[in-house]
């Protein structure tokens, strides 16, 4: 597994609150990396720096280095729109736009300048297929995206992210609002997607991290306590705090 994302001594402040402290980390390509830790530990914050969604929160300040494929994210080498195109994101709550299923998927490609109907049709079909949703919705693409179930909506959001052809997919507790069966479907989907995409997921569910991911990072109060292969972290953690957390003593 080649490392793709390099994070070195990253510090992040929300006005005066020190949200990430000296985070140093590498994230491998074409694999699943899980961020775990109690709420407020900074795992979502770090995830949102990877596509610079934190930019929109006034008073955010960043120090240190965060680079994808050798490019510093906070340099003027980066257009934030292109970054977000290459680094897709799926959110905690399914958030389809109040438009048709088709228009939801086509929204991103259209933003980035694709106008041809034929090309868009193609993208919609492949994206929905990649998200394992095509068979369920292919006959009513014009229906409102709000008419399908929550689990389907979340897979639609994954398809929407895939439609702009990203390299990396960020998932911010993407199954926490779903029922167990929908969760399972998305976990299976993620397993399939890792051959083509680098996936970083935040989860509050340790079992999910253990089941799904290749590498796990444990956060506590804005610091990375430990990161390693998922198997090793869960069976043989080196830090006492990691052990306490995964054995359910706090969090």
């Amino acid at each position, binding site marked *: 597994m080649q490392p793709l994302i390099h994070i070195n001594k990253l510090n992040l402040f929300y006005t005066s609150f020190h949200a990430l402290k000296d985070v140093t980390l590498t994230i491998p390509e074409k694999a699943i990396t899980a961020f775990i830790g109690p709420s407020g530990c900074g795992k979502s914050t770090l995830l949102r720096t990877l596509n610079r969604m934190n930019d929109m929160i006034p008073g955010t300040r960043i120090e240190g280095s965060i680079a*994808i*494929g050798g*490019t510093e*994210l906070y*340099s003027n*080498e*980066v*257009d934030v*729109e*292109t*970054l977000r*195109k*290459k680094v897709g994101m799926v959110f905690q709550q399914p958030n389809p736009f109040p438009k048709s299923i088709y228009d939801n998927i086509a929204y991103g490609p259209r*933003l*980035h*300048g694709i106008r041809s109907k034929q090309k868009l049709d193609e993208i919609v079909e492949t994206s929905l297929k990649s998200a394992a949703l095509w068979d369920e919705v292919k006959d009513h693409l014009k229906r409102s995206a709000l008419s399908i179930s929550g689990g389907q909506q979340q897979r639609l959001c994954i398809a929407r992210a895939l439609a702009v052809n990203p390299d990396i997919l960020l998932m911010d507790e993407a199954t926490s609002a779903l029922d167990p069966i929908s969760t399972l479907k998305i976990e299976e989907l993620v397993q399939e997607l890792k051959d083509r995409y680098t996936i970083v997921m935040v989860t509050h569910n340790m079992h999910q991290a253990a089941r799904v991911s290749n590498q796990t990072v444990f956060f506590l109060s804005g610091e990375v306590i430990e990161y390693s292969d998922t198997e090793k972290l869960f069976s043989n953690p080196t830090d006492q705090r990691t052990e306490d957390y995964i054995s359910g003593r706090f969090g």
Partner: protein
Amino acid sequence: MSIFQDANRKQIANRRRVDWLLHILFVIATSVGVLALCALIIDVLVDGVARLQPQLFTEFPSRKADGSGMKSALVGTVYMLLIMLPLSFVLGVGAAIYLEEYAGKNRLTRLIQLNISTLAGVPSIVYGILGLTIFVRLMSLDRSLIAGAFTMTLLVLPIIIVSAQEAIRAVPKSRRDASFALGATKWQTVSRSVIPSSLAGILTGVILAMSRAIGETAPLVMIGALTYVAFLPNSLMDSFTVMPIQIYNWISKPQLEFKELAASGILVLLALLLIMNFSAIMLRNKYQKNV
């Protein structure tokens, strides 16, 4: 050139240019409102400040601009407020309490609620027509202070009811439960727990409604508040005038001096409104801290 800048460079530059352009446009559009207010205030100040003298408050209107004041209008406005305030407070808050605390979820309640929101959109001059027919003619109150106050009460009731409802709705259910659990009756709970908790919010709405009433002209013109009143009303049945009507009267005169008088009248009116709005904001801030 990095992987986050490739083929789309030009397209993204274009989109950003559009974003920047629209941003400027939106700022300009927003400042139109702000600038309009500034222009209005400066315009009135320039025209009116010269005649902003004690005689404005001590003299009755007269044929000559130099000796004219708005004493009768000022007093008329204050009298009208004094009559309206208790009337609209009791009726408005009463209706709000009924709708929030007592009314069942049935068709009648929905009808009343719909009716209130519709009334809020009825042009004020239509209230004038109503007042003219019911109070001036039918109840033979004539063109009196009381007829004017009744008409204006009906006009501001929807505003008071809606804002009082919001204030009452903001009182947490736990506070009612605590009162009931101590053995209080419905009315005791409402009068000793719900109303005190929402009083600041209710008063804010009442003040805003009163400031609406101070500025209203059309309905009072309809019911025949006079434009030329050289005496102070002595009883509820006396005829009267109010500030906006006096201002209207001055505006409609062709001579420049009366335009200036109108502008200084407007300054007084705006100052009064500013004081009322300011106290409403203070109340609202206090209220937000408490809840």
